[in-house]
């Protein structure tokens, strides 16, 4: 037992202290945060203050509407009420700040009147202002805008697709509304009639579901299991190959029986994995408790799933199940081969199995109660991913969960038993890769 603990201790300490572990543990939550928060930030925060746009209205009647659409219905802080103001003046900066840094409100619009000057001359003036950065862009509304003439948006940053899109939509709405008015259609009525529906989705138990975020959550859980099982399985493979290649195995076997040695190794690496997942779990929890609220207070609304505590328990259970199934097979593979490359080749079917389980989870997220979902979550090589995804999307009856756990852990025990017989012989065999019939003979003989 003491020797067994010595193996676990070595495996654990040597791994937890590596730079890789430290970096991966820190980067994990950062990446998690990256995937959820950064897009939210990107969409909501636009660096560098509001976009200052000038509008040259050659139709003579569109400016108000366009300005209102651009500033999203807020009062237009434009220069129209002050026709005498020179074209160069910007709007009251206080108003801009009140609009906040939210993208939709971050337009400052000013009207530039032609006042019988030629269009080209005004363009030149505005181009000069864009050059000296007192303006970000200008819109030219041609006289026949309402028919089919194309408006033009000239911007310093023509690659800013978001702004471009936004300008286009705003102009479309303004033009559509003006056309209606001119066709004698009540604008208010149209607005009322074209109000979009807002779909409210609720889970089976009645709580309001944040559809998108729980999809991502189910997907994320599947991905996390997949990646950790793969990563830590590979660790076991690497560790076994190292001991075989360097012939440390010979000393080990002269001191400890192969069964506790192999189990010690598997348990040691699993503890490393649990340490890492534990740190991530804690980071997740802290973020849920403090981070989400804090960001919301700053106007960044990220959709964050509500996770029942039982979820963490299931996660750990299914992770361990997946880990012990796959890592055990990895250990066997490692003992059969002579080099890391060979190990990679021989482990390929195993990797494919794991990938298959991961891809199955896509269809399972869509129909978690199909018979495909049922059988996939009973098959021990798929269950760690598929059953977890089912639990997240639409929790199956408890007997199904229990059954899949029983099948899975029974499989793991069987594999470990089988593996320990192959391991001992394989580890001492050198020179060539073992063939499957050979391995089968080892199993029967030992």
């Amino acid at each position, binding site marked *: 037992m003491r020797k067994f603990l*010595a193996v676990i201790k*070595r495996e654990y300490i*040597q791994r937890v202290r590596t730079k890789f572990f430290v970096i991966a543990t820190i980067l994990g939550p950062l990446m998690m945060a990256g995937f959820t928060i950064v897009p939210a930030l990107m969409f909501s925060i636009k660096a560098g203050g509001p976009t200052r746009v000038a509008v040259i209205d050659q139709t003579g009647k569109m400016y108000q509407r366009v300005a209102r659409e651009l500033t999203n219905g807020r009062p237009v802080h434009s220069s129209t009420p002050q026709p005498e103001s020179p074209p160069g003046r910007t709007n009251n900066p206080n108003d801009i700040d009140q609009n906040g840094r939210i993208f939709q409100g971050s337009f400052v619009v000013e009207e530039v009147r032609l006042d019988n000057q030629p269009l080209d001359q005004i363009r030149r003036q505005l181009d000069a202002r864009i050059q000296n950065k007192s303006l970000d862009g200008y819109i030219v509304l041609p006289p026949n805008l309402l028919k089919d003439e194309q408006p033009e948006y000239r911007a310093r940053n023509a690659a800013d697709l978001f702004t471009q899109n936004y300008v286009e939509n705003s102009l479309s709405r303004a033009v559509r509304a003006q056309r209606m008015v001119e066709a004698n259609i009540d604008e208010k009525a149209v607005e009322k009639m074209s109000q979009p529906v807002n779909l409210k989705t609720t889970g089976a138990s009645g709580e309001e579901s944040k559809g998108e975020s729980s999809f991502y959550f189910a997907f994320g859980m599947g991905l996390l299991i997949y990646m950790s099982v793969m990563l830590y399985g590979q660790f076991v493979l690497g560790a076994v190959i190292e*001991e075989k290649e*360097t*012939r440390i195995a010979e*000393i080990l076997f002269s*001191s400890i029986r192969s069964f506790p040695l192999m189990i010690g190794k598997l348990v040691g690496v699993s503890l490393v994995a649990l340490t890492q997942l534990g740190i991530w779990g804690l980071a997740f929890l802290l973020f849920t408790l403090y981070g989400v609220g804090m960001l919301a207070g700053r106007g960044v609304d990220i959709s964050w799933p509500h996770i029942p505590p039982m979820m963490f328990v299931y996660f750990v259970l299914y992770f361990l199940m997946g880990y012990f199934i796959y890592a055990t097979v990895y250990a066997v593979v490692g003992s059969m081969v002579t080099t890391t490359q060979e190990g990679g080749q021989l482990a390929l079917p195993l990797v494919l199995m794991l990938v298959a389980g991961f891809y199955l989870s896509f269809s399972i997220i869509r129909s978690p109660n199909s018979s495909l979902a049922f059988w996939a979550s009973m098959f021990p090589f798929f269950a760690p991913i598929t059953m977890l995804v089912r639990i997240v999307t639409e929790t199956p009856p408890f007997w199904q969960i229990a059954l899949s756990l029983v099948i899975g852990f029974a499989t793991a025990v069987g594999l470990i038993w089988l593996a320990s017989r192959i391991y001992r012989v394989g580890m001492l065999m050198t020179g060539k890769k073992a063939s499957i019939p050979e391995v089968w003979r080892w199993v029967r003989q030992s």
Partner: protein
Amino acid sequence: MEDAKPTLVLDHVTKRYGDFTAVNDLSLQVRPGRVFGLIGPNGAGKTTTIRMIVNIIIPDSGRVELFGQKMTTALQDRIGYLPEERGLYKKMKVGEQLRFFAELKGLRGKEADERIDNWLRKLQLSDWKDKRAKELSKGMQQKVQFITAVIHNPDLVILDEPFSGLDPVNVDLMKETIQEQKAAGKTIILSTHQMEIAEKLCDDVCMINRAHKVLDGRLREIRRSFSRNAVALQFEGGDGFLNDPALVANIRQNGDDCEVLLVPGASPQTLLRRLVDAGVAVTKFELVEPTLHDIFIEKVREAA
């Protein structure tokens, strides 16, 4: 000491791998407190024999008895083993590595640390305690590995080719250490294909070739029984006096030496008198004991 129970008994032990017989019907006894040489060329079956002794492979037939008991995993802790193919965890520090192997042998706590420090000092490795194994030279790694074999103070130390890869200084250090172990009452099994080294260190030897035992016994007795009545000579002057079939059976030039094989029964004293009478200047006159190498070759030829 002579009548003490043998430390190790192999009784008609055979190990096959498929069609290949690695060790065939091998019997031997290792007596306590002695250095036992397991000698033979590469591929003779030495390593397989040792692996059966340390219980990492199990013989197909025959019996291995250690300290008067049937081999068990518990007895493994009383053996120290330096395998031929050496391995250390490359990224692990020397000190931690030794600590781990000590723990695997049931050693722990302060005692383990003290012994590790003592051994590192003894083998001039103290400065390397916190270095990773991969930073060490091959010879140093080997010394570290040697420590793992003796750290738990085992009764039986098995060294498989302990000198390969060592420079002359470290070979001497290693020899010295082996002698100390012997003086401390340990039984030592030394497996090697370097017969000159075995000759200097071993009390008893067992020669194996192609899975079979060629001969075994006390080294001194073996050499005596193979004595060929030969003299190594160095002299200046004519050598006509050597042409006497009643005295000299054969002459062989061996480097600067002239090796003279006397006819059975002839006395070396007669040869010496002849030399003096012939008036040649003798710079070397030495009775030649057969080397293990010679004995081995002779036995293998006999068997063929």
